[in-house]
């Protein structure tokens, strides 16, 4: 089990004939991702390094049954590529492209509301990986290990750092989602936390945030109210001066809002263990897991009511019947 990305993903790459698109399509294929082709307008019908190339997403979906795309289209054309993917029947859109104008993303965000079953990850993100199963993105596969820790982050290399620390501790990851460093992204921290909370195979979560916006605070509220799993976090940008954009378009403290201090306070108030330094992310995770274990022991085991037990038994019987039919 995992979230968003599993073995059923059939992936195309939009912008596959570009240097980055081709390089990472090959890397994904080597990792085990089912790469079924790519799209470059005007190059349909050709083949590149064993990938079939189509002119449009629609054609690619019809021919290959693709349900996932990885976008490497240049920034000024990437918004159109996202919309093309959604209209073409793709359900999981991973947009790696950096530098898309925010106004373009505001438009995309509104139009995607008309596609409730489509999920966009990014833009300006490393992508998503379910270790040992598939990766759709630019992260180095070998630092990951299959396991039960979910990771969600706005950053690329800082995510690798967190992944590495988890792997060094002898644990592995269920799914790592790089949600992207832009002010407007398709999947936010809270969306990712919700998915990981509902995922049976994820036992604990690391959330990596940074200065700017209030995404992390919203996710903290969700964690406080609904999260059943231990959560550790790190917020980057404590040393950033106000008003400066720290590399990521979204990483800016403006009007005194979006500071690391505010965010850390909100996270701690939600019971999240926040790493004081980036080298402590792994240890923060251990602490969060330890803390939650203590709590679980103290709590009484839940007893099922008679009604619920009957329901469960009924379902079980139904399933068995189905099996027998087969």
């Amino acid at each position: 089990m995992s979230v968003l990305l599993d073995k059923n993903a059939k992936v195309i790459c939009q912008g596959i004939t570009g240097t980055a698109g081709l390089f990472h399509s090959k890397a994904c294929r080597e990792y085990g991702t089912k790469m079924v082709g790519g799209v470059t307008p005007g190059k349909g019908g050709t083949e590149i390094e064993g990938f079939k190339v189509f002119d449009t997403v629609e054609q690619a979906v019809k021919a290959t049954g693709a349900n996932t795309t990885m976008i490497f289209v240049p920034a000024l054309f990437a918004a159109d590529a996202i919309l093309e993917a959604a209209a073409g029947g793709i359900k999981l859109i991973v947009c790696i492209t950096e530098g898309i104008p925010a106004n373009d993303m505001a438009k995309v965000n509104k139009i995607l509301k008309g596609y409730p079953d489509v999920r966009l990850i990014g833009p300006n993100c490393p992508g998503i990986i379910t270790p040992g199963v598939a990766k759709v993105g630019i992260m180095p596969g070998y630092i990951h290990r299959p396991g039960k820790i979910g990771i969600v982050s706005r950053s690329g290399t800082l995510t690798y750092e967190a992944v590495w620390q988890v792997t060094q501790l002898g644990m592995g990851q269920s799914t790592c989602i790089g949600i992207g460093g832009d002010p407007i992204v398709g999947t936010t921290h809270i969306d990712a936390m919700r998915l990981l909370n509902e995922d049976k195979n994820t036992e604990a979560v690391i959330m990596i945030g940074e200065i700017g916006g209030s995404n992390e605070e919203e996710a903290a509220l969700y964690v406080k109210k609904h999260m059943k799993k231990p959560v550790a976090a790190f917020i980057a940008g404590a040393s950033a001066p106000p008003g400066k954009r720290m590399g990521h378009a979204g990483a800016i403290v403006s009007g005194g809002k979006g500071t690391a201090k505010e965010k850390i306070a909100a996270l701690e108030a939600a019971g999240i263990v926040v790493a004081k330094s980036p080298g402590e992310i792994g240890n923060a995770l251990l602490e969060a897991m330890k803390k939650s274990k203590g709590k679980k022991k103290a709590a009484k085991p839940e007893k099922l009511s008679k009604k619920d037990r009957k329901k469960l038994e009924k379902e079980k019987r139904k399933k068995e019947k189905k099996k027998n039919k087969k």
Partner: protein
Amino acid sequence: MKLHEYQAKEIFAKYGIPVTPGAVVKHLSEVDEALKKFPQGPWVVKAQVHAGGRGKAGGVKFAKTEQEVQEKSAAILGMTLISPQTGPEGKLVKKIFITPAVDYVKELYVSVVLDRVNRTPIILASAEGGTEIEELAVTKPEAIFKIIVDPIEGLHAYQARQLHLRLGLPQEAINQGAKLFQNMVRCFMDLDLSMLEVNPLVVLKDGSIHCLDAKVDFEDNGLARHKDYATWRDPDEEDARELEAAQHGLSYISLDGYIGCLVNGAGLAMATADAIQYFGGSPANFLDVGGSASQKAVTQAFKIILSDTRVKAILVNIFGGIAKCDVIAQGIIDAAKEVGLSLPLVVRLEGTNVEKGKELLAQSGLKYSFASSMDEAAKAVVAAVKGANS
């Protein structure tokens, strides 16, 4: 990219947003010419720097006579303007804007910005103009109106009329006001701005509405679409190292400290600066060589860091993903040789081709210390500076 008031007003005029024209003066000898262009006084002389709070800092002066225009121009041109937005070192005023003064009866505030929560542009407006909006947001948040703009359709006329009335603007000017707000939003969306701000927007004696000030920030990502305006950048207003870094595809930001950082990826670069601070040091910069750093980019980055004389030690923190550690290592070696590096250097490499990278460094004869984790690296570089000082 930030623009000066006079540049923003030029853009406003193109979008049918009413502003008072004026003349830009870079040298006192040009004041006469400006007065010839705008002979009707009184005037206002305004410092052109990329910072707010100019009025309180003495950068905006009223002048009744031509003689006074000369005097005020002489006072402002060449002054170091210090406002809460410039930092304690202030900003040297290299340009002024001379504009006929406008008589007004009411001051308001209007801006268009991107709202991250709603994921749309929004208008922020208040009938209480003149003051800093950040201040108003704290002291009297109910006085700020927020209008959500459709990111595709723009501001609807009915929304603009509603805003006009909520701001208490004269009923007879409702259509002019509505048009003005719509034009502001059109300008914001057309030009991919990250901010458009008018403070104050004023009501003149005849009831018409007018922008006394104008502020426009282009979003850097959108600038590629507006090449004509990209040339409007004023290099005097920007950090020379930041500009040079940008030309090499590096993301560099000056900080106040003394430890130079070279990192790949924005998040890791921020976290590295944080770690230095956490362990008692102070970062001199944020520097992201990019996820796919090339050897050349690394060499260039090193030179930029070393051009900063405050730097007393350097920390390199690379997590190789797309970027390969051996390539980065070679970049470090090349740069160190080229510039004759004498400062303490701490290197932390992890990820793709890390063994090759370590080998290259070890064989290079370069003096450096190697750290195997991020915390260890931050501690080592802080200790190196302290050791050098004692």
